């Protein structure tokens, strides 16, 4: 079931008349049967968007379509969605079994059938043996799986997850995100999840949608968005350690950093620009490198080495990742060699210049 958001906006007006624009003019098509991550920093409007798709928030403007039907005015219980809340919202007074059966009872399904279906989905998410426990007797990860089963049991057209991994400890997060992937593949349900962790989003999504300040930034397959960021925000948000931003300029249609030419063929007037290069896109090469860098610190984490240094004329420190075989010592004066395809140039406003 494809989900289409058209010109979707949500504004909150408080008692004093102040307007908070949570989401503005989103136009997104979410392909059917895929696992999509809505990614962005806290407060960027991603949860609001999810809740609008669920029907718990009514859009101020715009439409939401499930397939060909306009569901903008359809109440949540009639949309056929399943929602896993960030805090799971399991009914504390009901057993796991009764929690999962609850939606089915509301659909007036006969008890026999409901129990079988509940067991089926419980087994799917791997809590089939805990059916008679109450939520407070379960661990966080187990509770979440119950919440997922409850959402899936009515075979929804769309499955929505609100920050599914943020309440779990680090180790459980790695496990669970694989689980989510597995469950999505097995059921084939269009799944949208919200997260602020770019690594999470990248690791399991078929496509990611990046949102900032309620505005759409970019959508695409994770690697594509990583390799070809549409703007400065996306470039800075994805990638760990974060991308290095150099202050440069376009002069006579040439790209210069600290006076050294790196590229040519740019349009437009002479202006200052920002140049983004990811830590892994450098080599330290005293011969072929162009930009001089002085090494301040090195961090050896076994797999590779992070070199932290500064370039004269640049305000920010630069981080580079080099294979551990290469050597770098503090105080070294080296030269940076950039990988040409991986240099991103942005206007000061953040737009990408191709």
């Amino acid at each position: 079931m494809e989900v289409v958001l058209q010109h979707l906006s949500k504004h909150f007006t408080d008692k004093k008349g102040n307007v908070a624009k949570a989401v503005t003019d989103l136009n997104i098509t979410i392909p059917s049967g895929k696992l999509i991550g809505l990614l962005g920093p806290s407060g960027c409007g991603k949860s609001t968007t999810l809740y609008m798709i669920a029907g718990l928030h009514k859009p101020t403007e715009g439409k939401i379509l499930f397939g060909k039907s306009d569901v903008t005015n359809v109440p949540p219980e009639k949309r056929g969605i399943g929602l896993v809340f960030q805090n799971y919202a399991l009914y504390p007074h009901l057993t796991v079994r009764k929690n999962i059966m609850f939606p089915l009872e509301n659909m007036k399904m006969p008890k026999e059938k409901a129990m079988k279906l509940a067991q089926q989905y419980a087994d799917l998410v791997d809590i089939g043996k805990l059916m008679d426990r109450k939520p407070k007797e379960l661990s966080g990860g187990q509770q979440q799986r119950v919440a997922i089963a409850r959402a899936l049991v009515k075979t929804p057209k769309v499955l929505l997850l609100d920050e599914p991994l943020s309440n779990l400890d680090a180790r459980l997060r790695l496990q669970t995100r694989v689980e989510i992937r597995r469950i999505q593949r097995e059921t084939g349900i269009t799944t949208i999840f919200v997260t602020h962790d770019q690594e999470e989003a990248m690791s399991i999504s078929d496509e990611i949608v990046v949102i900032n300040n309620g505005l759409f930034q970019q959508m695409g397959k994770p690697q594509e968005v990583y390799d070809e960021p549409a703007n400065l925000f996306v470039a800075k948000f994805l990638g760990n350690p974060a991308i290095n931003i150099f202050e440069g300029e376009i002069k006579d249609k040439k790209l210069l950093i600290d006076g050294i030419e790196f590229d040519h063929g740019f349009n437009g007037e002479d202006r200052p620009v920002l140049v983004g290069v990811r830590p892994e896109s450098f080599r330290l090469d005293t011969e072929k490198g162009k930009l001089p860098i002085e090494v301040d610190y090195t961090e050896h984490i076994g797999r590779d080495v992070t070199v932290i240094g500064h370039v004269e004329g640049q305000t920010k420190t630069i981080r580079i990742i080099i294979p551990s075989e290469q050597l770098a010592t503090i105080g070294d004066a080296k030269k940076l060699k950039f990988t040409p395809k991986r240099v991103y140039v942005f206007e000061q406003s953040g737009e990408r210049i191709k």
Partner: protein
Amino acid sequence: MLEGKKDGWKALIALAPALIFLIVFMFFPIVNTFIMSFMENFQFKSGAGIFAINHRSTGIGFGEYINVLRNPLFITALKNTLVMVVISVPISIILSLLVAVVLNGIKRFQNVFQTIFFLPYVTNTIALGMVFKVMFGTNHGLVNLVLSWFGVGPVAWLTNAASGGYWSSLFVIVVYTVWTGLAFKVLVFLSGLQSIDKQYYDAAKIDGASRGRIFSKITVPLLSPMIAYITITSFIGAFKSYENVIAIFGNGQYTFGPYGNTNMWITVVGFIYKTMPNMMQAGALSRASAGSVILLLIILAFTVIQLYVSKKKVNY
């Protein structure tokens, strides 16, 4: 790091003030009264001190208990108390639950209503009891005035008119008890309702539950601990009825009825207080003690039953 702390001395100092009073006026009396109840024909002896066992009695046994249980006044008191409990408690609880639910469902003026509903809690039982007596006065009362607007003849609420007097007085007592009891219950129920996480309602909506199902399957179960608590404490409180009865009849601490039938609505606690004040009289204190132990047992029995029931029904 907090394990193995040895604070024996500090605890003693901190607890000392409380402990002194607790021992003298709470723990000791419980034991002492208990002992006294078994001292038949307890005779207070001057100079014998505060320990019951040092005073005279004609023997140790259940004599006083039998005496009390056979006493027609006590039987009346027991009957009266049971009637009051059985009638006023359910009405009280259902009404307050209803008020709390409605109050929780409106948006404006919640505070105003809450304050109004809470007023009776702080008022003086004796003072307001007299107001009710005047309101239900036969000739000049407000209630009869309103009834006369509907053509219903004046009712002799708190007088000795034949057999009707018993039930009409009960009506007044029940109304007064409900009036004073609403405040506490509404407050507790309302707090309980407000403490239910809104997310459960959202989740239930998404799970397709109708408003009725949300109330019966989510709200009531999550409120059930409060309901159980209120039920138990209300029953206990009702068994100890005394002040509200004498307040209604407004003629001193031993008047439980209208002129000519001052024991009409005597309660178990009323019986205890009527029996005890003359310390010098033989058996007075021991009889009162036995009465209080019987009261304790009744309360215990009811509470145990209710705890058992709530274990089964309060599912969380």
